[in-house]
């Protein structure tokens, strides 16, 4: 099994490298948009006389935003992935079904492979940004925070896959799932805390946002990284996130079982 997964992994990397120019440009465009937000916040701090805004110092804010951008390179980009929907709609799922490994496992491995790949390439891309803003950047105050941060982004990656996979699997019934996934992505970006820490929002709105599972993607990891959340609370958050993961895993299984029964592939 592990060897099979390894091959899927390798394949993803080879594919990604084949279209490296476009793919690098894609990462670059992500960097551009996160830089714009960083400049915006630098200006906000400049024009305000306060050194702490909304509980964040300028260093914390810049670190938050660059970290958010980096997490976004592998979460937002893979959320766009149309593979599952496409193979159901176009019938290429049939090819996967006859393989000695479940299509679901293949999709999962491909998603994981892409995320790891994007994370490293993103890291390379962001090193330029990190260099430029190095005087603002903060490191976790202790190694526990760093470990918790890494666990947090791993869980985030898993949860993000499960949520978007559930939507993609709707392709068994709906002809085009792009719209649903697009809407979810739009919500995910702001509600997840990619452009602003959620604590900036008015209390009511914050509470609404926290009802979505998206704050686990960026807001929580960055709070953990910056040490803005006590350790015992981190465990509680992880527990909640685990609940979401289990729930979505079950939803995925249910949809997959129901969907595959009525899957029809048209031949030429």
């Amino acid at each position, binding site marked *: 099994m592990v060897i099979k997964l390894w091959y899927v992994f390798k394949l993803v990397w080879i594919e990604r490298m084949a279209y490296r120019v*476009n793919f690098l440009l894609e990462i670059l465009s992500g960097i*551009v948009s996160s830089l714009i937000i960083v400049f915006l916040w630098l200006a906000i701090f*400049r024009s305000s006389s306060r050194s702490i805004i909304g509980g964040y110092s300028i260093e914390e804010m810049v670190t938050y935003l660059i970290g958010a951008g980096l997490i976004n390179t592998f979460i937002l980009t893979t959320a766009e992935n149309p593979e599952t929907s496409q193979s159901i709609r176009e019938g290429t799922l049939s090819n996967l079904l006859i393989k000695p490994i479940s299509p679901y496992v293949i999709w999962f491995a491909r998603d994981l492979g892409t995320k790891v790949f994007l994370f490293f390439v993103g890291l390379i891309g962001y090193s330029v940004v990190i260099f430029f803003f190095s005087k603002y950047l903060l490191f976790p105050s202790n190694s526990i925070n760093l470990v918790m941060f890494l666990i947090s982004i791993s869980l985030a990656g898993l949860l993000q896959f499960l949520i978007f996979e559930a939507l993609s699997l709707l392709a068994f019934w*709906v002809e085009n799932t792009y*719209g*649903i996934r697009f809407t979810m*992505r739009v919500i995910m970006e*702001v509600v997840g805390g990619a452009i602003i820490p959620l604590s900036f*929002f*008015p209390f009511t709105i914050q509470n609404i946002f926290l009802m979505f599972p998206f704050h686990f993607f960026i807001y929580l990891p960055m709070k953990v990284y910056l040490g803005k959340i006590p350790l015992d609370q981190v465990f509680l958050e992880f527990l909640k996130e685990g609940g979401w993961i289990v729930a979505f895993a079950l939803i995925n299984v249910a949809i997959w079982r129901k969907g595959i029964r009525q899957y029809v592939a048209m031949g030429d």
Partner: protein
Amino acid sequence: MKVLKRYIRLFGFLIRISLMRQMDYRLNFIFMITGKIIRIGLLFLFFQAIFLNVSRIGQWSYNQVLLLFATFHLVDFIISITFQRNLAFHLPQRIQSGELDTRMILPVNLLFIASFEDIDLIDFFSFLPTVGFLGYVLYHLDFAFTWTQFLFYILLIANALVFLFAVVLIVATISFWTIQSYGLARIFDNLLRIGRYPLDIFEGVLRAMFIYILPLSLVAQIPAQALLNSLSPRFLVFSFTAANFFLILALKFWKLGLKNYSSAST
């Protein structure tokens, strides 16, 4: 005059065909519109959240930033309904696949069909709430402006469209040589979003660049400033000149690109 009429009728046809095609997936259509409206709503909340904590971004107050934001999205929606996707994404694809050939033999101007073939009605329906939002900003946020200022505002928005058409065309035309300019178009897409914020956010070289070299200030900031009566005549002249300069450059570049086009067919 007759030619103009013909093109207007043709434009009408293109809208109808696009509507038919996009309504094919009705549920998707509705979700896309919802998603785009939610995005504007969330961005609005984003600005509110900022201004809960500070009173200004650079020289810009809350009301002024909202005006800038609404203006930017008005312009952004107009270009995405019309030429943006056609030029930035479809044209490079058609150059790559050689499909451009079938457009070349049509008895219409190639640039016209390349720019307006797919009219994005999803964006049109999400555009309407943006216009409503702009109306709200203008009415309720006590901006005092004269009709002359308003006229300049409209003219400068038109000018912004000319400028963006030119820049998008330049980026798209690059694909005559590179075959692929999709990634570049995407970067420009992101770069364009700078126009949503006051350019005060930049300092030094970057600021000068976005005012003079790649004047993204033309997109929303300058129209908004004209309405707020804080635009100097010097910048007014500069805006119209710059947009025209980019347009002439883009058209020259387009012609050069076409000369270089070698149909890639199977």
